[in-house]
């Protein structure tokens, strides 16, 4: 009953609207929670991140505004709304104005295919996962628009690096999802979650608890960190590297829109990772199924967000060539091996054989690739080249 409270609420409210307007009201009632919940989550995440990073770095985070700094987003909102909106004189005004708008529109769209709870999905598309990736690919163009329209060398450089990074890491992201799609047999997110909803003894049927699923989940999360330009892959937007990358020339509200877009992208891709690997809205243990499904989804989302913040506070930033090498020379072959391993899992029968086979595939590939990546960059004796 508590599980379906939002669905029942929507049907009850729908009963109060005139019959002619019912399709439009239904769509509105489906979209409105998404538009309200995720920006509020964004506000909470900014506080969580700053306090979390502060604690990792042995300092307090913001603690002036409100009880333990919880009202900090309000202060940030007031600041960003009242700051002067400076646009450089030589900037391309149309493209400069459109870039944050397109980024925001494209950041909200993927939430339509994430199943937040049982029967709680905005659009049950037949090709849901493909929709998610298509929309994610469009956001690269808006990043480029932002960087190019500012007519600033650093901005353009940051934008090109960001786009190159996003394109490079899209391939392992897609390949690790292909492994899940192959195991589930469908591109629809609802079907993928339903395939993970059984229990064998005490263990759920989540894909992360299989050898290929575990490796695929790790690859997916690394690629997701790179796709959303989060540290340690935030070279295009690091403050100490390139000032602020492709949003240098944005101030005030447009900068806040970029920030919002980036965090929304982070939540969306975490949501997809949860749907594909962590079982979506299903409970982890059989005796916990009385907890509502949407609480499980948000709990897993919170766990992944904390993981992102933790990684940001711990690992140093990757250099551009290290980043590209990692994507093309390690993650892409590893993702291909995960696909093969998932295929072996799917087509061998139940039993110990398929565990062993898929584990052997992944372990051997990992050792070989890690060895290969390591030996190339051996530190050599310094040589000097003089001008002749």
């Amino acid at each position: 009953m508590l599980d379906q409270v939002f669905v029942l609420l929507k049907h009850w409210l729908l009963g109060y609207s005139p019959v002619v307007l019912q399709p439009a009201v239904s769509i509105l009632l489906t979209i409105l929670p998404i538009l309200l919940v995720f920006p509020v989550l964004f506000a909470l995440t900014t506080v969580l991140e700053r306090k979390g990073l502060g604690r990792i770095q042995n300092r307090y985070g913001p603690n002036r505004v409100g009880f333990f700094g919880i009202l900090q987003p309000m202060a940030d909102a007031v600041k960003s709304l009242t700051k002067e909106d400076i646009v450089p004189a030589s900037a391309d005004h149309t493209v400069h104005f459109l870039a944050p708008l397109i980024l925001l529109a494209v950041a909200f769209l993927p939430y339509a295919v994430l199943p937040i709870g049982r029967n709680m999905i905005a659009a049950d598309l037949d090709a849901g996962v493909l929709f998610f990736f298509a929309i994610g690919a469009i956001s690269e163009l808006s990043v480029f628009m932002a960087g190019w329209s500012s007519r600033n060398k650093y901005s353009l450089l940051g934008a090109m690096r960001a786009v190159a990074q996003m394109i490079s890491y899209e391939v392992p992201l897609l390949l690790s999802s292909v492994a899940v799609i192959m195991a589930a047999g469908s591109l629809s997110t609802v079907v993928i979650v339903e395939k993970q909803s059984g229990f064998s003894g005490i263990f759920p049927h989540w894909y992360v608890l299989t050898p290929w699923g575990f490796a695929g989940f790790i690859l997916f999360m690394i690629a997701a960190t790179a796709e959303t330009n989060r540290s340690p892959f935030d070279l295009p937007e690091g403050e100490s590297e390139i000032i602020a990358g492709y949003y240098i020339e944005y101030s005030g509200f447009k900068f806040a829109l970029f920030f919002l877009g980036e965090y929304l992208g982070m939540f969306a891709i975490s949501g997809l990772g949860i749907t594909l690997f962590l079982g979506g809205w299903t409970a982890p243990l059989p005796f916990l199924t009385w907890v509502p499904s949407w609480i499980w989804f948000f709990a897993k989302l919170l766990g992944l967000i904390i993981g992102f913040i933790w990684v940001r506070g711990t690992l140093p930033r990757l250099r551009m060539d290290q980043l590209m090498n990692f994507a093309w020379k390690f993650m892409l072959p590893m993702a291909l091996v995960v696909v093969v391993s998932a295929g072996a899992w799917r087509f061998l029968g139940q039993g110990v054989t398929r565990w062993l086979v898929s584990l052997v595939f992944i372990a051997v590939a990992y050792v070989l690739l890690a060895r290969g990546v390591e030996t190339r960059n051996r530190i050599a004796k310094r040589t000097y080249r003089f001008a002749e």
Partner: protein
Amino acid sequence: MSLMSATFFILAAITLVGACAAMMLRGLVHCALAVAIAFAGLGTLYLNLGAQFLGLAQLLVYVGAIAVLIVFVILLTRGGDSDSPPLSRAALPITGLLVAACIFAVLAWAVFHSFAVHSAVPLAAPATVRELGTVLMADYVLPLEVIGLMLTAALIGAAIIAMREKQATQ
């Protein structure tokens, strides 16, 4: 039915405006962004016609990859720096536009004199991804393998053609 036509007109208008802008604007990056709009409009047209997989594949490949590739190459070849007029001089632009207009006239005549204007109510055409996958693996497996080979060849070929030659000065 009328709602479908309204969305179809809007999407078709966006696509055509994007395509015309791509062929007429001065700045190269503006042209590239306009053609990205045209591709996106086409992708949504496919979605409107019920081809889910094809529409999303169009958005993913054309807007997400080909448009970005075009933009990269424009920036790598210092596009937009030259201040020469966008169209060639002398008689060439008129000839080109005339040829295009003639071809459009012929195609429009062919459309209006074909069965297309007399066909009845369109039937629903379901195409789940599962059916598509079955057909691809059963009937069209040879083209599938050939296109895999071709894409590999294109990848290697493009990388080799665009590779900077190694400087032999030490």
